[in-house]
């Protein structure tokens, strides 16, 4: 029997008002997240990954941004229908988020103990002492040594990796069912990156938290995620289980993306190929209309790629892509 998804994003459209007119940042995006699952989101810089995450939290800066259409269903109730007060009860409690920039994501003038326990006291009727205990426990769980002393420290006294751990502790302090991690390691060095991913992996198993992991690094997805959605210019172009996408990418953009990462290839070393890149740049979002937004960079481009939105092509059981070329080749 098919499980009900925990979180579903349906036909999500996000627009930004700019001086030169409206920009469509997300274009009818569909996603779903099953309980206990780790869903990866990949795509180039500027393709709308962070906007997707902020939409789920309903933290799109408005104005200039706004969610113009769609549904975001958490356990089948639409978050977009909640009033601000109800949405505040969801944030940090049922859905939490950790951000790209650990150096600036903590408030410099409050101790980290206060910033973590604040989340607990906001959502659970805990006394100061209980919240403090729980804070120490959470900091210990994310691998911060001597948390009893750390809670009195301020963000500037911690390294980037430690700060990101504090963010993770804060995000998980109320056992949310969904954790959104938006490029949590981009600003950290490689060894710390590995530690943070190990931590997230362990949390996902121990706490049964579903995770949406945003990254532009295919090798991270290969390590971490169960399923992956590939985004391009505000739309999803392909989605499937991680193995299917890596071993058998169908969409021309995904193929390019996989080829960019040398060690993901099935038989490394047998063919010595130059490191690949996808020619061209991400299009100006204002110009995106009713065509395939990847068409200008696509090596298989055909006439009607410029005329109509590409259809959904089912490739495997959980594997589909949006492409005219694949539709023709069926």
């Amino acid at each position, binding site marked *: 029997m098919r499980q009900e998804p925990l979180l579903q994003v349906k036909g999500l459209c996000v627009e930004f008002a700019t001086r030169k007119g409206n920009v469509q940042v997300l274009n009818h995006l569909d996603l779903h997240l099953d309980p206990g699952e780790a869903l990866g989101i990949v795509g180039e810089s500027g393709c709308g990954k962070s906007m997707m995450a902020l939409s789920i*939290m309903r*933290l799109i*800066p408005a104005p200039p941004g706004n969610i113009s259409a769609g549904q975001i269903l958490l356990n089948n109730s639409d978050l977009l229908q909640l009033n*601000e*007060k109800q*949405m*505040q*009860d*969801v*944030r*940090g*409690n049922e859905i*939490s*988020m950790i*951000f790209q*920039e650990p150096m*600036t*994501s*903590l*408030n*410099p*003038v*409050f*101790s980290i103990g206060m910033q973590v326990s*604040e*989340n607990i006291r*906001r*959502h659970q009727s805990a006394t100061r002492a209980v919240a403090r205990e729980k804070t120490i426990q959470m900091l210990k769980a994310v691998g911060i040594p001597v948390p009893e002393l750390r809670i009195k420290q*301020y963000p*500037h006294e911690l390294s980037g990796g430690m700060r990101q751990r504090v*963010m993770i502790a*804060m*995000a998980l302090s109320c056992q949310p069912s969904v954790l959104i991690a938006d490029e949590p390691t981009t600003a950290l060095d490689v060894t710390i990156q590995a530690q943070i991913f190990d931590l997230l992996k362990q949390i996902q198993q121990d706490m049964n938290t579903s995770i949406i992991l945003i990254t532009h690094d295919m090798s991270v997805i290969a390590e971490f995620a169960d399923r992956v959605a590939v985004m391009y210019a505000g739309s999803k172009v392909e989605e499937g289980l991680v193995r299917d996408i890596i071993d058998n990418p169908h969409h021309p953009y995904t193929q390019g993306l996989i080829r960019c990462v040398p060690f993901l290839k099935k038989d490394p070393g047998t063919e010595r190929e130059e490191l690949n890149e996808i020619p061209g740049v991400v299009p100006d979002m204002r110009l995106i209309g009713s065509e395939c937004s990847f068409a200008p960079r696509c090596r298989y481009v055909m006439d009607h790629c410029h005329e109509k939105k590409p259809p959904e092509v089912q490739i495997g059981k959980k594997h589909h892509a949006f492409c005219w070329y694949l539709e023709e080749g069926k």
Partner: protein
Amino acid sequence: MKTILPLLKRIAYSLMLLLAVIVLNFVLVHLAPGDAVTAMVGDMGGATPELIAELRVEYGLDQNLPTQLFKYIAKMVRGDLGISFTHNLPVIDLILEHLPATILLVMTAFFMAILIGTVLGIIAAQRPNSLFNHLITVISLSGYAAPVFWTGLMLLISFSYYFPIFPSFGMETVGFRGTFLEKTFDVLKHLVLPAVTLASIYVAVYSRLARASMLDVLGSDYIRTARSKGLSEKVVVYKHALKNALLPVVTMAGLQFAQLIAGAVVVETVFSWPGIGQLAFNSILRRDQPLLLGILFLSTIMVVVTNLITDFTYRILDPRIK
């Protein structure tokens, strides 16, 4: 201990600064043409050269400048600021008599400007394009642009003459008798117009600063984090953002305090407020060097102390400064 050491260091610096200012003041005041004797002789309508020389000896003005300076500092260390030529009273007594009025005026205007300015700035930051925001900008900039004496006179005409709500001069009603409470109220009534006049220049400074700083802070990553915890907008703005947004305001307050004292001289003259501003003004006209130097010395102390206080406030607000 961690906070005491830098404080001691700051105090030591401040003392050195004070000494430098004393020397500088002394030299500057004596560079101005004429001295107390010239002024006195002018008042008398002329005098014989013998009398002039005699007077110079009496006031110690016949010695050369370094000797005078040395004697002055030596006396000052003992707490003796000299005798005022024009009042024939110890300078320290004169200053202590007029200082409370000035401190009352300056401090009231100082906190009024910071409080009103910051509150207006924060409200404006939350509605950057509202009519209210533009209104605040126009009013506060007018206060900033208008000369102090003009603002003072306009307020006098409006609220003392056409609508006689507030008294027009002095700090107390002459011959006023009453309980302590009634007297306090009487002083407060006299205080309103001068304090508003003096504050009006700085409300604009603080409201613009608080607005800009608040807008900047509200767009920062940690505010997004605070929102992502589900905190209400009130907590986000008044707890997480405000404490950060106040930092530049505190810095500015420390820097501006000296200008506030300068502004007080004008305001005290307009409203006949019996503070050291008036005393300073007259001492310049009469070339009363000991009195002028004493007043300058005291203003310097006030500025140095305020800077120490703002420095300390900053340390409390911002844990990054150690």
